[in-house]
C-alpha cells in the first residue's frame, strides 16, 4: 500500500514592508538560525518544512516575498493559491505597522477569499527602540479579526508557534470542510513497512 509522502501541503506567504524580518523569520523557522546582516529579498523565494499537527504530517511551503514598494504589484500575483498569509511588521518601525492596513487591503484584493491570516509584530526582542506597543498590535488584530503574535526571529520567540497556529487554522478549516477527504494518517510503525491498518501510539 502506498504511503503518501505527506498528508497535506500548505502554501504559506510572508508579506510586509522591507526590512521587517520576513526572511529572518523564515530562516529561523526552516534552519533554526539567525543572521543580523540584511540582504533585501529581490524576488520570491520559498523553503519547505514538514510539521506534524493533529497527527498529520504537513508539508509547509513558505514563500518569502520582496517587501520593497516597487515590487508590490508583482508580488500580489503570488497571493493567489496561498492558504495562509503572515503579515509582518517591525515593532521598532511605526510605518511598517501603519502599512499593515495596506497589506490587509492587498490581501482582500488579491488573495483567495478564505485565506487564513496572521499578524506578526517582529523584533520584539528590541526594547530600547520599540515604537509600537503590543496593545496596538492586538487592537488592530482584533479590529480585523486576525490572530496576532509578537515574534522575534533573533531570540526565537513565537516563531514555531506562529507557523503552527497558522497551519492549524488551515488544517481545522480543511478538516471541517472535507471530513472524508483527509488522507489517512501515516503509520508510526516503520519496522517492516507493512500494511498495518492501525497506528500505534
Amino acid at each position, binding site marked *: 500500500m502506498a504511503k503518501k509522502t505527506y498528508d497535506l501541503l500548505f502554501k504559506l506567504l510572508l508579506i510586509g514592508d522591507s526590512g521587517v524580518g520576513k526572511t529572518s523569520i523564515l530562516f529561523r523557522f526552516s534552519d533554526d538560525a539567525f543572521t543580523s546582516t540584511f540582504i533585501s529579498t529581490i524576488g520570491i523565494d520559498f523553503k519547505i518544512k514538514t510539521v*506534524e499537527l493533529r497527527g498529520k504530517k504537513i508539508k509547509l511551503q513558505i514563500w518569502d516575498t520582496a517587501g520593497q514598494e516597487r515590487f508590490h504589484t*508583482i508580488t500580489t500575483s503570488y497571493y493567489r493559491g496561498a492558504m495562509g498569509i503572515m503579515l509582518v511588521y517591525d515593532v521598532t518601525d511605526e510605518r511598517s505597522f501603519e502599512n499593515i492596513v495596506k497589506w490587509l487591503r492587498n490581501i482582500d484584493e488579491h488573495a483567495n477569499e478564505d485565506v487564513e491570516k496572521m499578524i506578526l509584530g517582529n523584533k520584539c526582542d528590541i526594547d530600547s527602540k520599540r515604537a509600537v506597543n503590543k496593545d496596538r498590535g492586538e487592537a488592530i488584530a482584533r479590529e480585523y479579526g486576525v490572530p496576532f503574535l509578537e515574534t522575534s526571529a533573533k531570540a526565537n520567540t513565537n516563531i514555531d508557534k506562529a507557523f503552527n497556529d497558522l497551519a492549524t487554522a488551515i488544517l481545522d478549516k480543511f478538516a471541517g470542510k472535507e471530513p472524508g477527504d483527509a488522507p489517512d494518517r501515516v503509520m508510526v*510503525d516503520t*519496522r517492516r*513497512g507493512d*500494511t498495518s491498518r492501525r497506528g500505534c501510539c
Partner: protein
Amino acid sequence: MSSNQDLIGIIQAKLSSGETASSCHEASLMQGWVRASRILALVEHENEWALFIFISSRMPPEVFTDLAIERVIPVDSDFKCEIDAGEQSGDVYVNISSRKLKLLFEMIPGIKTNNFVSEIMRSMEALMKLRGPPPEFQWLHKYSGSTSNRNSADCDPAPVDAADVDVTKGAKTVAEKMLDIDSPDIVVPRQSIAQGATPIAARESVIRYQMSMKEDDYTFTETLRVFIGTWNVNGLPPNASLSPWLASDMEPPDLYAVGFQELDLSKEAFLFNDTPREEEWRKAVIAGLHPAAKYRQVALVRLVGMMLILLVQEKHEKHVRNVAWETVGTGIMGKMGNKGGVGIRVEIHNTSICFVNSHLAAHVEEFERRNQDYHDICSRLSFSKFVPTKCIKDHDQVYWLGDLNYRITEMEPRIVRDLISHNSLSALLECDQLNRQRQHKNVFDGYREGPITFKPTYKYDPGTDDWDSSEKNRAPAWCDRILWRGDGMEQKEYRSHPILRTSDHKPVSALFESQIRVIDVVKYRKVHEEVMKKLDKLENEFLPQVTVDNTEIIFDIVRFLEPQSQELIIANTGQVPVDFEFIKKLDDSKYCKEWLNIDPAASSIKPGEKCDVKLELFVDKKSASKLNSGEDKLYDILVLHLDGGKDIFITVTGNYERSCFGSSLEALVHISVPVREIPIGKLVELENVREAPGGMEPYPIPKEIWFLVDHLYRHGLKKQNLFLLTGLHSELIAIRNWLDNGSSEPLPGSLYSIAEALLLLLESTAEPIVPFNLHSVCLGAATNYLQCKQIIMQLPEFRRNVFLYLCFFLQELLSHANENGLDAKTLATVFGAIFLRDPPRVSARGRVNPAVMDRKKASFVYHFLVNDLSDYVMSKSLHLSGTS
C-alpha cells in the same frame, strides 16, 4: 529485452565458472537520502542463490570491467525481499534485508521490475523447498573481500569490519561475512547529486527506511514472561483443573500460548472440523490460568484436533496489534487436518511474534515425514492478510510447540524405560530423533531448544504415571516439545507436568523471558522529527539556487534606433542543475517590454557554472511613440524564474532621449525649434493635449517632414530606387541628430538614408497618417477613387496636409520615372503600408489575408499618385518649392 540480454552477458563475464546470472536489473540504491545507480543480478550456483549488487563506472555498462561488485547477499533463510509499490507515485521500492543489513532499492515500475522481483521470490521459494541441510554458500567465499574495498566515489561510509560483527557466535558462516553492516548515518554523495536529475527520493519510503535504521534510538526493551504450553490430550475432554500446568509459577506470565493436539479424534471432527471440545478445553484453559492476573484472549485457532489459544494480560492488550492466524494441514493426502500446524502471529509493541502449534507425522520410523511436515508448514503457513504475506520466518520471535512426534530410536523400549528409571536421560537424548535431525540441520534449522530435564512425556496409560502397558508396548519418547527462534528470548523453565493424567501424553510447558521492543513515543517523535528535519534541510538545499550579479540593470542614455546591451551573469550556486526562464508577470503579453530583448530567455545551468544573459535595449519605431508620450517608460521588472524554485526580480531602467521620431504629427507641427530644445514636460504635454497651445501658429506640416522631402525634391528626383533601397544605420543616426538638435550644416546622409528616415519618421508615430479608426473604411473604399478622396478630405488638417504633400512629391518623382525607374504601383505599395499602417493586433489576426490587405492599401494610395490633385484645396505653403 535484448539489452537485458547484453547486460546478463556482461555480468556473466564477471562471474566464475559454475555461476550463472539468471536475471538482472537496473535499480537505484537509496543511500541515506539519495539514489545511486546499481545493477542487481540474481546468481545461481548449484541450487544456491545470491543477489549480487554491482556498481558500474558507466550506465549502462559496456564491458565487464565497468562493473565492480559492491555486495553479495546470499539468499538464505534470513534473506527478505519486500515490495512497497507506490499507488500514484509510480515508484516501486524493494526492500532487501538480511539480518541487520537493510537496503532500499527504487525500481522503475513495469514488466522488467516485476520479472526481476518474481525471480528473487522464486529463488527464495527454491530455498524453502530445499531438503537436507541448509546451503552453505561456500562459493561466495571469494567475494567476501570485494564487499569491503568498494572504491566508488559515491559509496557509503567504510563498512564495519565483518569480523567485529558478532563474536559471540564463534565461527561465522560465509553468509555472515558477506554482510557488512552499514552505518545508518546519513551520507549525501553530493557529487552524484550534482550530476543527477532529481536526487531526493520520494519521502515516505526514505523516512521509513531511515526510521528502521535508527530503531535502536527510539525503542527500549521490555521483558515479557511468555508461557508456552503443549499437550496432546488424546481426544479426551478435560477432567481436572489445568492450573498445575498453567499456573505452576510464582509470578503470572504476561502471555500464554497454549496448544493442544488430538483435541477430538472423532470422525466428525476430522471431516467437518467441528467439535464441542474446542469450547470445553478453551474454558478449561481460562479456568486454569494464573490467578494473580487478568487475561484476555487474543486469538484462538483450531484445525481438527490442533488448537492454539493466545492470551495476554489485560494490561498488554492495547499494545497487541496485527493479529492473524492461519492453519496448514499436512495429513492424509498431504492436506487433511489430522496433522499439520496452526499459527497465530501478533505484534506486541514493536516486536512481531509468531506462535506455531504443530502435530507432525506419527510412527517411530517416520522421522523424515516429520521433517517434511515441518518444511511444509514453514512454506505453507503464511498470513495472507498482509501485503506482502508474512511467513513464519518473517517474525522477530517464533515459538514452535507441539506434538512433534520424534521418538527414541535404536533402543529397546525396555532399555529406554530402564535408563529413565535410573534418570540417565542424556544417553536417551542422544538417541532422540529430533536432536539428531537438528544436528544434521534437516529440521528446525535456526531454532533452539532448552535442555530437557524431564522424563519423556509419551506414552502413559491414561489416568496414571505408568508407561504404556498395551500390546504395542511403545517406547517412551519426548514427543512434546517447545523450540524457539529469535533474538532476546531466554528460556527460564522447560518441564513436563506429570500430575495431569488425562491423556497418554503429559503436558509440557516452557517459560520465557523475552525482550520486546517498545517504542518510546517521546524518543520516536524526536528521532522522527530529526529525520524529517534532515529531509527538509536536504530538500531545501537541493532547491535550485542561483545568484545574479546585478538585479538593477541601468542603461544610461538611450537614443532612438541605437541599441545598447548589458550582461547579466546568472551563476548556479546550488547543488542541482537549474532551468531558468524569464516569465511573464501579471497580465503582460511577454516576459519583457517590447524595447528589450533577452538572450537567452531560458536555459539550463549546471551546478558551479554560469550563464551570460544579454539584455539588449533597443527603441525602434514600434516603441518610440509610447516613450515619447509617456505611456511607457524605460522601466521594466523582469521575473527570472527557476524551475521548481524561486523567482528573482530584475529591474531594468534607462534614460530615454526623446526624438522627433516617435513624435506625433500634431506635436511636431507645434514645435518650431529642434525637439531636443523643448523640455520633456512640454513634449509630453504636446503629445497628450490635443488642442493647439497658444503662442505659435502651427506649421501646416511638421518641419522635419518638410526638411526631408525638400532635400529629396531638390536632390533626389532622378535617383534610382529611392524608397526601395535601404540607407545606412549610421547615417540614419546622423539624420536623427540633425533633425533633433538642429544644425547649420546641410542635412547629412545619402539620398537613400534620407528617404528611409522619412519612412521611419512616418512609421514611428503612434498612429499612421490615416488614423486606425479609418483603416477598414479605407480598405473598403480602395477601388473607388471618389470615396477615397472623400475620406482624405475628411482627415484632420495636419494629416491631410502631410498626406497630400507627400502625394504631390511622389507624383513629382513619378514624373521623372524615365530617369529614376520608379513606377506608381511600387510607390503605392511602399506608401500604402505607411499611410495605412495596420492597427495593432489586426495584423496578427489570421483571418485577413495580409497580401489582400496590402493590395488594397496600395490601390488606395495609387489613386492619389495617378490622378490630378490640383483641384484639392491646398494651402500655399504646401507647394513643394516652398521655402523654409
